């Protein structure tokens, strides 16, 4: 087998075809595969075996970190490091600390969400083998792609090609690494 093969890629016209092909491929036993589409197609990620993303947890942790940082900073500077007696008012004037605590909660949570999404997606990654397929340019425009990768246990070149051909694609190509 070609050592340099990333996988075999089929191109579909309709999102439903992609969804059905992914479901069928999962049933046959392929696991190392990915689907590419110009907009989100409901159900494809789940059909690929994608369980749940940890992003909401990351965002929550980011928010908590922001809240703690902001409140601790204000409390420490106003009570410990730089106590300022303004007409005998309490140093720990918590209501005044709420706005900044809120703002930093949102800031840290949003940063955690954005950076977390890119990190979990492995981006930025400017090159990837799928870009070697010339028709892949259409993945960001109109077409839907399924690529079964060569490092899957069940990967046999001819079987995979026959399987993909049976799903009525526009084209099937081998993708070099």
């Amino acid at each position: 087998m070609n050592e340099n093969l990333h996988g075999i890629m089929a191109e579909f016209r309709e999102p439903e075809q992609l969804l059905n092909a992914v479901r069928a491929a999962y049933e046959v036993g392929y696991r190392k595969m990915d689907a590419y589409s110009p907009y989100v197609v409901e159900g494809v990620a789940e059909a690929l075996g994608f369980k749940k993303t940890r992003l909401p947890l990351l965002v929550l942790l980011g928010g908590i970190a922001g809240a703690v940082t902001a409140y601790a900073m204000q409390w420490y500077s106003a009570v410990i490091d730089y106590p300022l007696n303004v007409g005998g008012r309490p140093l720990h004037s918590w209501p005044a600390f709420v706005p900044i605590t809120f703002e930093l909660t949102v800031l840290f949570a949003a940063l955690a969400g954005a950076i977390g999404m890119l990190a979990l997606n492995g981006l930025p990654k400017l090159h990837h083998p799928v870009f070697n397929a010339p028709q892949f340019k259409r993945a960001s425009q109109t077409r839907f792609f399924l690529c079964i990768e060569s490092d899957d246990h069940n990967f046999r070149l001819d079987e995979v090609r026959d399987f993909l051909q049976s799903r009525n694609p526009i084209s099937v190509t081998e993708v070099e690494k």
Partner: protein
Amino acid sequence: MNAEVEEPLVASGYDSASVTQKITDIVLKCPLQRGWLGGFAFAFILLMLFNFAIAWVLSKGVGIWGVNIPVAWGFAIVNFVWWIGIGHAGTFISAILLLLHQDWRTSINRFAEAMTLFALACAGLFPLLHLGRPWVFYWLLPYPDTMDLWPQWRSALVWDVFAVGTYLTVSIIFWYIGLIPDLATMRDRAERKPVQLIYGVLSLGWRGSARHWKRFHMTYLLLAGLATPLVLSVHSVVSTDFATAIVPGWHSTIFPPYFVAGAIFSGFAMVLTLAIPIRKFYNLQDFITIRHLDNSAKVMLATALMVSYGYISEGFMSWYSDDKFEIYMTLNRMFGPYAPAYWLLIFCNVIVPQALWFKRIRTNPAALFIIALLVNVGMWTERYVIVITSLHRDFMPSAWGIFHGTRWDWMTLIGSFGLFATLFFLFLRVLPSISISEMRDLVHKKSESSK
């Protein structure tokens, strides 16, 4: 019984290929047009005027503005509040309408978010210039400094720094994340190598993997959920700059909601001011349809009523308070030296928007454009009245004074339009001004439902 057929969100006959082509061609294929060049040149001249006015302020000091005691807050604060309010509509459209499943936001959210960023760029400059010594603006931030000082956390002005800083950062993140799949489309449609390279790097190598899309959507929703309370908090914090002072006309609990409503009001006016020419010059009537204009006009009408309620409530409360300073302030606003500004704002913000009750007006782009411009003027005037009339006659008549903007005040205001417009013209030329991936989704869902 409703015989009227609802106007469509996208004209019929589009599929994902033609949507993609139409939006990307504006950037990739369309040659430089005379209209764009003329507009850009005009904006750029104003931007140079802005640079000149700023350079002069930096070399001479804020004394060249009209500000002095008692009116120490002049145009800089008025412009800041006005610009930041305009930004709010972009976030409202992109975040709040997303959470409410209003799919009419799809074709206007991208440029509305761009509008937010550019409005914030203008807004952010004014308080910095107003500092008098803008080069030490970082004293507002908590950092381990050799002076052993901390910011005063109980000050609304310090809250402002955090609110505006967070708002700017989150708006940039939200906008950029939303752009990533479209930048990948631009990369794949670009024909020349350097163009492909630039969009390729900016798209971070997005390849549309189903797993990536899943996380992308999750993030987008979470960011919308975060931006929603954020946008409400920003103008609330801005309003506390006024409300925490004891100055008559400022010291009022209605300020936060009243400011937020005013912000969304003026922001939608700006959205219409931009959308109506864009859809005409770039032939985008099929994507930014009459229904978008109609809906934006309805939001404007609703917020106009909230703002009107604010004006009425202010008047009522000053009478009900039986406080002679408050009563005098209200009478002085209506009949004092700044009465023309007051009645101009009532005309632009209360009377003119009543025309929006009529569907014939809401679906007429020319009429809407004029109303939107008047509302922009009215909202600037409102902030002018709030800032100036309260300060110029507060408590002791011996400390009263009159404020007039100098030519440098007007130059910085007009110059800031140049900054905004220059950025906006560049945005139209280099980035897809409508979200392509969301439009594809929309036309797909539409074709599904019509099957």
